[in-house]
């Protein structure tokens, strides 16, 4: 056994817990999880059955933590997990799993399969069996600060640009602000409209907010590669920044995994409850809407539909908020089939979009989204995750579908009353 494999197995021994044991013992091989997985439904290849993606983990569980499995192992009757096997499984665990959790939502015995994939990735990454693309993203996030290699000066340039554009000040490191706004590097590079939208919305709502010079990047490639040690390094920056600036709430940007990393995994990674709240931008906007702090004018009249990011609906519980927000500014909002809780993944979540060699499979799986879209034929597609947005745009382009994709926050910003003076000034 190679040292790296040994390390991987040891990590798996650490992460295997009662839920995983319960899940493996409950599986009756009914195959329904395959029906929920777009990599299976679009390719028809049984190897993409979600529970099968966990086979090495199952064997380690059995060999290490069950009496019969240990006896079998002692008698030399069980098949050990090897580097070659993990190498083969890399495609199944990373390329063909976006941690979308549809399988977890349908499993009749209640297995949280994606919970297990997440844990399995701990061992896979420790054993060195993670894809190059995600490794690179982790590398850049840890060493530079952002998966796309964006540094503070780039953000500052953006800030200046937005300030000029909106005439509003973008606060940086403002201690005691109510909200600390996080960005994803995709937004910094590809969708600069987001920062402007935030500035205007906050201004209109009369809330204090700030960016943090040591923690502006919300995405956490450590979660995607599935390595808690590295994810902790990344999330700690945000925790430190938020605590230093004494903010009440940290706002996760339009990015699914950033939200999961911060909202659900963060406290567990640093090992203590947060002293601040974490909210997704849509949750904040919905709160503003409820308190009547979000005033908009005019309506979109073209046909809109909403793509639910998996980490928001199935893993985050944010389902109704985007719908309420869209209905405030749109007249012709339609739902795709399976939308909401059971929405299909864009095909690029969970770090999959960073895997170059997985592109072909990703595009194949995108046919699911294509058929969903064809069922409603929208003029534009709204979403609330920068990663979804990029993957959707790639897929739509590949299938030559002319449907522009927009972020919900910036769409709302477009409907803010023009040049409205901040209240009380």
């Amino acid at each position, binding site marked *: 056994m*190679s040292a*790296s494999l040994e*390390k991987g197995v*040891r*990590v798996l*021994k*650490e992460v*295997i817990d009662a839920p995983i044991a319960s899940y493996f013992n409950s599986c009756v091989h009914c195959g329904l999880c395959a029906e929920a997985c777009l990599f299976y439904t679009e390719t028809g290849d049984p190897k993409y059955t979600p529970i099968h993606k966990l086979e090495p983990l199952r064997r380690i569980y059995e060999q*290490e*933590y*069950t*009496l019969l499995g240990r006896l079998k192992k002692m008698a030399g009757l069980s098949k050990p997990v090897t*580097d070659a096997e993990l190498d083969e499984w890399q495609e199944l665990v990373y390329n063909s799993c976006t941690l979308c959790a549809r399988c977890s939502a349908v499993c009749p015995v209640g297995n949280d399969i994606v919970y297990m994939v997440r844990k399995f990735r701990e061992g896979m*990454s*420790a*054993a*060195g*069996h*993670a894809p190059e693309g995600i*490794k690179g993203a*982790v*590398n850049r996030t*840890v*060493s530079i600060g952002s998966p796309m290699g964006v540094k503070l000066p780039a953000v500052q340039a953006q800030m200046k640009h937005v300030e000029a554009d909106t005439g509003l000040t973008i606060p940086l490191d403002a201690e005691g602000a109510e909200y600390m706004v996080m960005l994803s590097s995709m937004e910094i590079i590809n969708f600069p409209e987001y920062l402007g939208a935030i500035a205007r919305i906050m201004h209109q709502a009369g809330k204090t907010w700030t960016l943090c010079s040591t923690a502006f990047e919300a995405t956490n490639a450590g979660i995607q*590669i599935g*390595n808690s*040690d*590295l994810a902790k390094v990344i999330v700690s920056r945000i925790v430190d920044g938020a605590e230093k600036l004494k903010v009440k709430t940290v706002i996760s940007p339009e990015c699914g995994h950033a939200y999961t990393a911060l909202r659900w995994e963060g406290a567990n990674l640093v090992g203590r409850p947060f002293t601040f709240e974490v909210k997704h931008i849509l949750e904040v906007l919905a709160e503003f809407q409820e308190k009547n702090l979000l005033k908009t004018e005019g309506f979109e009249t073209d046909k809109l539909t909403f793509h639910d990011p998996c980490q928001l609906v199935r893993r985050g519980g944010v389902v109704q908020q985007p719908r309420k927000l869209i209905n405030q500014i749109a007249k012709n909002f339609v739902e795709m089939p399976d939308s909401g809780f059971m929405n299909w993944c864009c095909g690029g979540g969970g770090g999959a979009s960073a895997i170059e060699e997985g592109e072909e499979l990703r595009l194949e799986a995108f046919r699911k989204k294509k058929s969903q879209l064809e069922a409603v034929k929208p003029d534009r597609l709204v979403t609330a995750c920068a990663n979804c947005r990029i993957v959707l745009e790639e897929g739509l382009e590949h299938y030559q579908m002319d449907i522009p994709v927009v972020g919900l926050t910036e769409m709302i910003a477009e409907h803010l009353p023009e040049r409205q003076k901040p209240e009380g000034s």
Partner: protein
Amino acid sequence: MERSDTLQEKMEQNGMSRRTFIKYCASLASLMALPPSAAYAMAEALGKAKRPSVIWLPFQECTGCTESITRSHSPSIEGMIFDMISLDYQETLMAAAGHQAEEALHAAMKENYGKYVLIIDGSVATGLDGAYSCIAGRSNLESLKEAAKGAAAIIALGSCASFGGIPKANPNPTGAVAVSDIIKDKPIVNIPGCPPIPVVITGVLAQFLTFGTLPELDKLGRPKAVYGETIHDRCYRRPFYDQGKFAKTFDDEGARQGWCLFELGCKGPVTYNACATTKWNDSTSFPIESGHGCIGCSEPDFWDAGGFYKALSMPADPLKMAATAAVAGAAVGVAISFANRAKKGAAKSAHETTKLEDLEK
């Protein structure tokens, strides 16, 4: 009194006609499932048969079998058959006693060596070299082995001789076994029952005397003709079983209506005997007809078959080991959980924080 040499002569003496005898043979043939035409052959052969020597040894028994045969209400013919045989040794019935009886036994064995029929009732004690049951200072085991040597055939009469019976019941202190467990080289007919149906023994004897053959036997050594079907198959309450009408207690409406006694523990479905057709006490009735389930007395180990009043489908022995098993299971479980926790703890303390360079192999 001088005995007649053949049955024919005996009948004539008693003023019994040949036709009466044929009729009797017809009924025996019917019982033994021989073709009806056999009745005539039987009548002829039996009429001319010489008195065969019969030696009857009682072992661990209660004399119930002897009672059953001798108190049979059948007419004189069956008694006559017994008259016909030369019952050279039968402790209970014979007049001789002590040394006289022993001498008679040995004389008969010597005189008829290789030809006599040996009837055994009672099981054979094997514990302490058979010391649990002795006659004239010799163990039954010894007597059986000696008597069997010269026997033409052996009839194991009653459940004890056939299968070990009540002496063999758990915990079997005397090491009781069946005749067939000891004797392997002689034809043995088992006529189980506690007691057995009297007419069966006359039927077997009649066939042996007539044709020199033993009836066809099933895998337990019982005459197929008598033990071929279960009490249940021939039971007059069977239609109620098929309709699912069961008496639940011995005094409920169902019991009064004569419904099936299955749920009250009737062993009819697993007991192979002819009680339901031949009946008992001069064909008056049989146990089920009197409102009590069959206890399966003619089956092996009937005493230990889970209680007379427990339905066949019920667990005999409600979960004796359940508590022990549960405790043992919990103990195993706890032991494994400690081992697992130790293993997990070891893995945790051996944790090396993953650094970027560790992502590469």
